[in-house]
């Protein structure tokens, strides 16, 4: 058989290339999950109201519910007032700044939010 006729040098080369593959696989195994990992719960964008919005809004739901909206300022005003009625704690002095922050970051002209997906099942038999 052909592999029996290979020289020691060729064998060594094969061992090196094998270890190269294994090393690459290890690196990929470590790096890929990092590259593809997605925090289950997203963050709100930076800004002077980020911390207060996080406290007021994310107590009850996660940031993606906000990140995916594309609303005008009047529509954000209605939403903030509805959420305050539904228990969101917003200092009266912060209401206008919160509406400005949401309108600025999530107005109708912003590009659509690209949501993540849940991981695909590893085996097709688990449907």
């Amino acid at each position, binding site marked *: 058989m052909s592999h029996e006729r290979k020289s020691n040098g060729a064998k060594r080369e094969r061992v090196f290339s094998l270890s190269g593959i294994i090393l690459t696989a290890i690196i990929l195994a470590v*790096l890929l999950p990092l*590259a593809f990992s997605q925090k289950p719960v997203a963050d709100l964008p930076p800004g002077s109201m980020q911390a207060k919005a996080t406290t007021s809004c994310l107590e009850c739901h996660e940031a993606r519910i906000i990140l995916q909206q594309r609303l005008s300022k009047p529509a954000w005003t209605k939403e903030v007032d509805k959420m305050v009625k539904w228990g969101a704690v917003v200092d009266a002095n912060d209401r206008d700044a919160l509406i400005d922050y949401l309108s600025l970051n999530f107005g109708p002209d912003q590009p659509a939010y690209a949501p993540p997906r*849940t991981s695909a099942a590893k085996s097709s038999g688990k449907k």
Partner: protein
Amino acid sequence: MSGAALAVSAAPSVFTWALPQSGSIDMPGENGLIVRSFRFVDLETPVEYFNTWLTPVSHFFVRNHMHEPSELSGDLANSDWRLTVGGEVDRPLTLTFSQLSKLETHSVVNTLECAGNGRSLHRPQVPGIQWGKGAVGTARFSGPSLRDILQRTGIKPTGKHVMFRGLDEVPGKVPPFIRSIPIEKALDSDTLVATHMNGAPLTKHHGFPARALVPGWIGAASCKWLTEIKILDSEFVGNFMTPGYRFPNQPGKPGEAVKPEDTHPLTALNVKSVISGPLDGASLKAGKVAVHGAAWAGESNIVKVEVSTDGGVTWTAASLGHDQARYAWRLWTYEWKANGGDYTIFSRATDSEGRTQPADPVWNPSGYLYNAVDQVKIHVA
């Protein structure tokens, strides 16, 4: 993954929040679904999964208004879960899961669609979960008929509506998720207290241990984690009946406010079709191309799906799939000989009531019942 993308994932959070979310989130049992929200859980089915008549539970969309019940034990034999039935009845009833399971089981294949499916396609955009086209799926639901349960209680002549309460955990001062359906629909033998989906016990995301299943109606009618049924003398009054889940009596101009008195509660679904392939943005080789998808019409039947490959100038009937049931979608397919070029492919369904998908959606302030002619743009080389 490219080095650039790796660098992006390591970039400070100041940049990453705005970038496309290319990663995936592990959620056991939920396979390849679009995460509209993780907490509370709202998952959308990508349209490419609309290629089987029954949607596997792992691909089935999830719509939660609030947090799922945390106290519910999986051990139903020893669970303190009960289903109570009361209100305008002679003999109020409390059922354990074991008692519920002993009632005669019925199965209904139902296309379940969230009223807000397609909301993100409305212009101007409206608040709410920004569903694309996939807050819909078809499954075989099984469990006792609601009528069998109600008839044991002796409904009084004053009983006109049936209220469902689930065990959703309410955050803050959010009104509880309680809705009602008219007694006529509740007494339809196809309306179930479902305990199973595609032959397996309901998963928690889908309402374990029991949910209402109101076939042909908006998904919100089919209350999950059901624990209380109450017969009322009038429609339930609460946020999720008014102003929630109402539709303008007359179509208005996009963006225009609608007075609450000029609206009615949503009930049955609309006529609708969705193209599940080719996918929007696809590049294909010239030759035979199978255009395919699903079409449904709530309590009505699909009689025709037409496809246009010339931007809506001419339409050709697609072939309807063999599998059908009263409340279930029909799969459809159209074999097209494609020459090179850029195309917009349309699909348009017509139902047994003579309703046809409109060219433009009927805009409404909450973005319900989007059912405009579906379209995908593709390139053929």
